């Protein structure tokens, strides 16, 4: 049963794109915060800031295709009391401009929000160059930086709202595809907190980002067909990570699986293992295994690269078999 405290509602029909949630939040906050400045590196439409640019032309800066400069200009603007939000694809920002994010933003504790769009295999047909599968690894190591990986449209709205109200650097991962919904407008997003989706006693499944929906299918199938009771946790905050919630769950179920749309090396699974390093529970990591993606339909890519619900089910069952 879905956790009633979170007002969850699985909606497979009205699909929405996570990136639209970011655009919506910025548009909503533009008026209330005249010092909210949105910057873009020639990807207005793709990053959903087009409407903001039209409605708040004085609060919008087109930088051109120059992500390093965008990070620096944003830090300069932030040093004068502005809340700045930089928008590009995650492979470029924080990919190409990592040094600027490190020094001008994180080391300087600048009030800059980085929205990295088109993350994961969901970027599909554009191919490996545009599928960010490493962004969490490279941002997770930066002090002062908060990292949010929203599960759906509504959670993205709240993530951007939260980032605007938080003083300091934040990285938010965004996705292009239209996807189902699990959270509702009245589902809370608490700073640094994991979300308990379903309670269980045999296994903890931890998932971050919209790969959640593949994981949810797998979890339902295993529960229904094998009678295994699974505790499902959504992890919107990669940093700070909710260590307490993870330890609490694993101390009950004694074993865990982490599912992510990112390289296993350095990603969400690594973050979970760091949090559980002093505990003694086996944890299986499911994600991209040290390979680049390729062009294709996201569903086919999920299958080929081992993160479709079918592949997840298979891997979880193998893991459980070995734990017997």
């Amino acid at each position: 049963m879905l956790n009633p405290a979170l007002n969850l509602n699985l909606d497979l029909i009205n699909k929405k794109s996570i990136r639209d949630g970011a655009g919506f939040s910025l548009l909503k906050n533009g008026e209330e915060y005249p010092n909210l400045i949105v910057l873009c590196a020639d990807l207005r439409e793709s990053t959903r800031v087009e409407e903001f640019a039209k409605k708040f032309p004085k609060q919008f800066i087109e930088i051109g295709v120059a992500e390093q400069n965008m990070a620096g200009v944003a830090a300069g603007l932030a040093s004068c009391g502005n809340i700045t939000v930089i928008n590009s694809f995650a492979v470029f920002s924080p990919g190409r401009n990592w040094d600027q994010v490190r020094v001008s933003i994180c080391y300087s504790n600048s009030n800059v929000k980085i929205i990295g769009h088109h993350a994961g295999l969901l970027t599909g047909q554009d191919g490996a160059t545009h599928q960010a599968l490493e962004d969490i690894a490279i941002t997770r190591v930066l002090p002062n930086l908060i990292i949010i990986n929203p599960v759906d449209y509504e959670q993205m709205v709240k993530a951007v709202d939260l980032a605007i109200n938080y003083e300091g650097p934040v990285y938010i991962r965004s996705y292009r595809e239209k996807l189902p919904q699990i959270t509702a407008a009245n589902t809370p997003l608490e700073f640094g907190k994991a979300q308990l989706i379903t309670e269980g006693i045999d296994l903890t499944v931890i998932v971050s980002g919209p790969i959640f929906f593949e994981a949810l299918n797998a979890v339902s199938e295993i529960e229904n067909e094998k009678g295994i009771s699974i505790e499902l946790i959504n992890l919107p905050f990669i940093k700070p990570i909710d260590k307490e919630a993870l330890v609490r769950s694993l101390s009950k179920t004694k074993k865990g699986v982490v599912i992510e749309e990112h390289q296993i090396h350095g990603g969400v699974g690594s973050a979970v293992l760091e949090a559980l390093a002093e505990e003694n529970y086996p944890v299986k990591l499911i994600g991209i295994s040290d390979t680049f993606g390729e062009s294709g339909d996201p569903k086919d890519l999920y299958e080929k690269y081992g993160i479709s619900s079918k592949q997840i089910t298979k891997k979880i069952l193998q893991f459980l078999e070995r734990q017997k």
Partner: protein
Amino acid sequence: MTSVEEITKLKEISFELRKSVIKMLTHAKSGHAAGSLGMADIFAALYFKFLNINPKNPYELNRDRLILSNGHICPVLYASMSKKGFFPEEELLTFRQIDSRLQGHPHNTSLPGVENSSGPLGQGISFGVGVAMNAQITNYKYKTFILGSDGELNEGQSWEAIMLAGARKIPGLILIIDKNNIQISGKTQEILDLDPLNEKFESFGWYVLEIDGNNMEEIYLAISKSVTIISKPVVIIANTIPGFGVDFMEYKFEWHGKPPSESEAKLAIESLEKNYKNEKK
């Protein structure tokens, strides 16, 4: 004070700043000598004539900003800040030591009055463009001075920022390039030739001034002129002598990233004093 008196006073200040730089580097046993000495005259002019800043209120919204992009010459930044009253002179000797606010490359949140963190080259120009854009958005009248160097212009990010500032005709933005023709491994001309630099900036939409960056009269006139130009960003290409004032350091790229030993420091101070006295004659 007449401008002649002001210039005399600024020359004295730059002499004092150079002595502080030598003392800091010698005590720290590391740091960058050549650029710090070469830029002392420009720092003296900015901190003690042109910058509208108040050490008692370093975060005043309408303050002028000095953005140091080539952060490795921070000894002369710290010497200027201390002399201006941002912190006591004794603290200069904590430079590069553990628990110090005077980091080896400047850190904004460590020391009030340091506007930006720098060290990785090229980042300060973008930062300064952002600061100048804020003035445009908010209608503040402050000026943004960015100090950068010729070697730093090897970095592509510099040109991204220069292109943006030129294209947007950002006013109140004055970039001073320390053109001392050296970088860490050798002569700028040999590592990666930048010339013709003036034409590059002109073609990027900047108003270009070129001066002798160790001549206080020329510095004074150029900065006075730069703040009157509002139609586009201004670059002052300051031809400086690396190591200026210390005879045995001048023009030597070997002194880019190295401090003097105790005995070299003594000779350096003597050289600074001799040259300062000769100039006063």
